[in-house]
């Protein structure tokens, strides 16, 4: 209990003694965790949009006038990347078209007989499989044409890949910078108290007793930095997506409160863990050198 009291008191002392350095570390940790959080949220949103697009992605297969639609449907059903499919008769296709055209549907009367062929509506499991599926479908002799919004999906997919790589690079960079700053802060803190630490070793203080306040100092700074970053992200995120959704309503952002709460907790937890690891490494390295006998 006495040792626990000392550890808490000394952690407070350490934070107060080097308050300028502590404040700088806190700001750096907050900025880095903010960048880390934003890049992760950006990546999450891109993935969310892509998933939505994939769910809505439909490949339209038009059967030749002399082709057997049932045979085409059976062949499509066997393809592994197909999630579901529906055979559409020319009559059904026409009524759908009339429904979509609304008041302009009368134009279709000029054409006379129904010009629409048998078709198959195919939903795929993921966007990446679309080009291969289209090639397979085009190779079928009974298929006249294949129509899909593939280009858009491919672009979003590419964008997602680039965004993910950028986010990952930013993530690693943020971790490296935060780790370095935290490590150096604790190292400076240890170095400035090296004489005191030497005395503590000589009078019989254990390594844990000496080092715990330093580890707690680093953990506390990183934890506070993460909390500041999370509050900053969340207070900007909701107004931000509201604004974007007003101007770009077709985009679907991550806005689930539960998901965002989990994300916030993860970010704070990650920051604190990072602080603990960096401080621990700094302390272990310093103590090992300090304890080494001549």
């Amino acid at each position, binding site marked *: 209990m*006495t040792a626990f009291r000392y550890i808490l008191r000394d952690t407070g002392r350490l934070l107060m003694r080097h308050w300028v350095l502590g404040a700088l570390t806190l700001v750096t940790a907050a900025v880095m965790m903010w960048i880390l959080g934003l890049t992760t949220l950006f990546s999450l949103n891109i993935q969310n949009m892509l998933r939505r697009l994939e769910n809505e992605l439909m490949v339209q297969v038009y059967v030749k006038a002399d082709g057997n639609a049932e045979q085409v449907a059976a062949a499509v059903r066997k393809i592994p990347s197909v999630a579901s499919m529906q055979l559409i008769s020319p009559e059904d296709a026409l009524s759908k078209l009339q429904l979509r055209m609304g008041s302009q549907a009368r134009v279709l009367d000029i054409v006379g007989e129904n010009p629409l062929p048998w078709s198959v509506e195919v939903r795929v499991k993921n966007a990446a499989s679309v080009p291969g599926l289209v090639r397979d479908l085009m190779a079928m002799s009974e298929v006249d044409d294949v129509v899909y919004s593939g280009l858009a999906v491919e672009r979003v997919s590419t964008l997602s890949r680039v965004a993910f790589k950028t986010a990952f690079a930013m993530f690693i960079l943020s971790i490296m910078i935060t780790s370095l700053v935290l490590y150096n802060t604790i190292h400076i803190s240890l170095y400035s108290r090296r004489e005191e630490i030497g005395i503590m*070793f000589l009078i019989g203080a254990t390594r844990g007793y000496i080092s715990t306040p330093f580890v707690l100092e680093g953990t506390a700074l990183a934890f506070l930095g993460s909390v500041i970053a999370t509050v900053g992200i969340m207070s900007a995120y909701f107004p931000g997506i509201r604004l974007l959704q007003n101007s770009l309503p077709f985009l679907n952002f991550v806005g689930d409160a539960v998901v965002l709460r989990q994300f916030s907790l993860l970010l704070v937890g990650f920051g604190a863990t990072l602080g603990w690891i960096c401080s621990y490494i700094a302390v272990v390295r310093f103590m090992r050198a300090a304890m080494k*006998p001549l």
Partner: protein
Amino acid sequence: MFFIRAGWEVKDCMKIKFSGVRKVFKPDIVALNNINLFIEKGEFVYIIGTTGSGKSTLLRMITREALPTKGVVYVGDVNLRRMRPGDIPYYRRDVGLVAQDFKLIQHLTVFENVCFVMEAMSIPPKMAEYRASRVIEQVGLSRRVNMRPPQLSGGEQQRLAIARALANSPSLLIADEPTGNLDVRTSDDIMKLLMGVNAAGVTVVMSTHNQHIVDTYRRRVIELEAGVIVRDEFEGSYDSL
């Protein structure tokens, strides 16, 4: 009683034995050479010699700040080289240390400097405060309890260092030139304190350059020269006869 860790008790505590000890610092500075030495429990031993003769190295081997290049150092029945790193703090709690440069924590008061040692051992605060008050009174610093080391004179700082060393009731007291920076009168006061500690049964090993002290308070004298023991006399004087 000398507890290093629960379950590990060293009997015949604080007998010190150096057996064929040699210490070489890189690249090839021989600090100690073929040291064979036995210090009985409760003895008062002066280690004398010129600067660089190996006095501090010898004391550092007892506190396990240094390890011999060759040979063995025993304290009680424990070979210090074989001591596990985790056991060193528990060993040092039974070894009081008084240094020439006092080694006090500058931002703590007299009272806190003494309490701090017991805090590190998780002694309950009330007990620590009681013991601290007693040792501070013993060394005559009762009126300075709230002062910090920079506010004290050299002699007072050394008294504080002795109070801190005594706070754990050690079986062994290592004093590395404790009167090195002090005038004759203050040195006498410090010596009286150390003699009192020794009279209470604590083994005292003290290195010194102070001829007046060695000649006034006659005890066993071990003289080192270039890392070798050249004289070991009971109730000896500073200069060999």
